[in-house]
């Protein structure tokens, strides 16, 4: 019974259907059909044909389910993370939760006030001063004037914009706007706060402040936060539980750590199959892999201090390829960039050998000193002539660093505490 009371938000079988293509043509006839079905007591004719929302495959139906049968509960005081690829339905879910749009089927039950932060500074008017905008924005988010007046000083202090509160917002830098807007939202006292990726803007100092504030909100005031982000670092440090959405369906719900690793697993499943053609087949990537230097076999487990090579094979028009710059970027699990290997930095020119129709580019790396963990390599293809990015292939290679015999780490390395790089060192 006690446990039952703790649930503050319950989402039951929520689905959302969208129409693809150009809305506007044929809406009258569809409306008419719907109306006819309603009058004759039949089911909505367009509710049946929707299919699961996989962006990359072409469906046959005009309607898709952006969300399908989402079911979960959130307890009071919990911070729930919502993760998923672009287009997995995260934003749609948040929109439904914050009543911006209604669900097609299913329902959501909750106790208390919901406030949503899908965007910071909604309704800011550029001509009005900071102070006036605090009131307007606060009221839009559901505060009364009295509440805002009471907290005005705190809001201004938290935003760090004291000097500018009487200046029109149009004179603000974008960072300042975000600070001011987040400050308003932070002093909102809803029972359930919904936050979309608003923290992506603002400097690191402010991001830290914002995340800290969210933690305070949930721990001290027993408020519930639903948080969507692509920043796995932020998700991990904030959320106790998380849900993973895949193509509009609830894939898995559970402890944050487990969900994040599921997320990356799901990510690597969608592996590109070589050859990948770039630009109407004029250029294709035949192969991209990792192997131990001076050995033939492809690896994805690398021992600390090893020498490795990253290899890419390209095929296509000679002069086009010779005008390319290549970059390999290594990211950690939290999608943080660790380092870059660039032909540009070393001023290396791609050159075909006589008689070859494909080019093999080798990048030899000596003594790799990444901490034991999983890493991802992205391939970036740029044009030399104007230094513009041609294509980015995210996370084409996944590899795992492991300990080696000649440098023994006695304990587990945690990237957020110890960093991603551990030099070969000795203590005396």
């Amino acid at each position: 019974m006690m446990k039952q009371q703790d649930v503050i938000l319950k989402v039951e079988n929520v689905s959302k259907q969208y129409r693809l293509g150009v809305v506007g043509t044929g809406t009258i006839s569809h409306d008419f059909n719907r109306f006819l079905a309603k009058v004759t007591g039949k089911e909505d004719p367009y509710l049946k044909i929707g299919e699961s929302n996989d962006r990359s495959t072409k469906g046959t139906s005009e309607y898709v389910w952006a969300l399908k049968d989402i079911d979960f509960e959130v307890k009071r005081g919990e911070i729930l993370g919502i993760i998923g690829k672009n287009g997995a339905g995260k934003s749609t879910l948040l929109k439904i939760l914050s009543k911006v749009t209604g669900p097609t089927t299913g329902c959501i039950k909750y106790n208390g006030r919901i406030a949503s932060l899908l965007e910071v500074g909604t309704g800011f008017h550029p001509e009005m001063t900071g102070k006036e905008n605090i009131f307007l924005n606060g009221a839009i988010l559901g505060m009364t004037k009295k509440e805002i007046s009471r907290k005005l000083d705190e809001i201004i202090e938290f935003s760090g914009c004291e000097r500018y509160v009487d200046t029109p917002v149009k004179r603000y830098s974008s960072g300042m706007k975000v600070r001011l807007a987040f400050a308003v939202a932070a002093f909102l006292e809803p029972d359930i706060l919904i936050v979309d990726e608003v923290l992506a803007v603002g400097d690191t100092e402010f991001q830290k402040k914002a995340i800290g504030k969210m933690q305070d909100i949930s721990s001290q005031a027993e408020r519930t936060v639903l948080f969507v982000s692509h920043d796995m670092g932020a998700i991990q440090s904030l959320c106790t539980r998380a849900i993973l959405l895949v193509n509009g369906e609830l894939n898995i719900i559970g402890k944050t750590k487990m969900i994040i690793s599921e997320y990356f697993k799901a990510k690597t499943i969608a592996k590109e199959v070589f050859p990948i053609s770039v630009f109407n087949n004029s250029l294709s990537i035949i192969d991209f892999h990792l192997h131990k230097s001076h050995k033939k076999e492809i690896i994805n487990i690398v021992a600390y201090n090893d020498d490795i090579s990253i290899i890419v094979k390209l095929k296509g028009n000679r002069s086009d390829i010779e005008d390319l710059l290549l970059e390999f970027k290594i990211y950690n699990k939290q999608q943080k960039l660790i380092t870059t290997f660039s032909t540009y930095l070393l001023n290396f020119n791609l050159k075909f050998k006589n008689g070859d129709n494909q080019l093999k580019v080798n990048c030899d790396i000596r003594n790799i000193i990444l901490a034991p963990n999983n890493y991802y390599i992205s391939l970036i293809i740029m044009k030399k002539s104007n230094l513009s990015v041609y294509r980015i292939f995210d996370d084409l290679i996944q590899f795992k660093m492991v300990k080696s015999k000649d440098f023994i780490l006695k304990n587990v390395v945690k990237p957020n505490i110890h960093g991603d790089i551990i030099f070969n060192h000795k203590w005396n």
Partner: protein
Amino acid sequence: MEKEKWLFNISPKNNTFNLNLKEVWHYRDLLFLFVKRDVITLYKQTILGPLWYLIQPLFTSVIFTLVFNNVAGIKTGGIPPFLFNLAGITTWNYFKECLVATSDTFKKNEQIFGKVYFPRIIMPMSIIISNLLKFAIQLFILICFYLYYVFFTNSGIRPSEFLFLFPLLIVFMGMVGLGLGMIISSMVTKYRDLTFLVSFGIQLLMYISLVVIPLSLFQKKGVEWLVMYNPMGYIIEMARFLLLNQGNVSKFGIAYTVIFSVLCLLFGTVIFNKTEKTFIDTI
């Protein structure tokens, strides 16, 4: 097991007549702040500022007087044509501004509505109220000319003894403007064509709303049917009756106007509430 208790519920369907007045009341400060925003930002960075409120009805009245009364020779009874036109235009303007601005609600506020929830009806309501301020300024200029004609000419005009009912008339006008505006704005979310209809329809409507041509003339020419079913016609005629004590006000006209305004507002609110839930998907 005990039944679970939930305070709120979001589901695909809601009760058609659930207007959520309690929620609107909770957001009353927002209503006030939107009005404030409209007022202080409208004429920022213009030189003449609120003077524009005055220029527009004055110039229109001058032109109308020249064209309709001097050239076309329309008789306005004992009333100076300029005052006759100014009274009509001032009243008409309030309705026009309300209708045009509210009929755009969903489209214009797509940005805000797509990101945060509050009772959407706050938005058109704020428009009706902030337009009242404009109306007050225009009414002020009307009063100035009125007093001039009373004291400095011997036209013998005087207000009706029912002048105290004038505010009530404004309320009904606001109701029609809000109601029609909400109906149109709800339909615009799907069928954009209506935007065009509004912008030129309102022009045409003016001519059959007795703004420049008095009801008596319509009756004399036997085309009364043109204005008989137009509640705005009755409202303008009544306004002129209250202000200038001239015009025909019938019991039918009053009853028709009251019933039409109430129904219009009710219907508008219902259709608006129905649309607000999912318009963001279709707009």
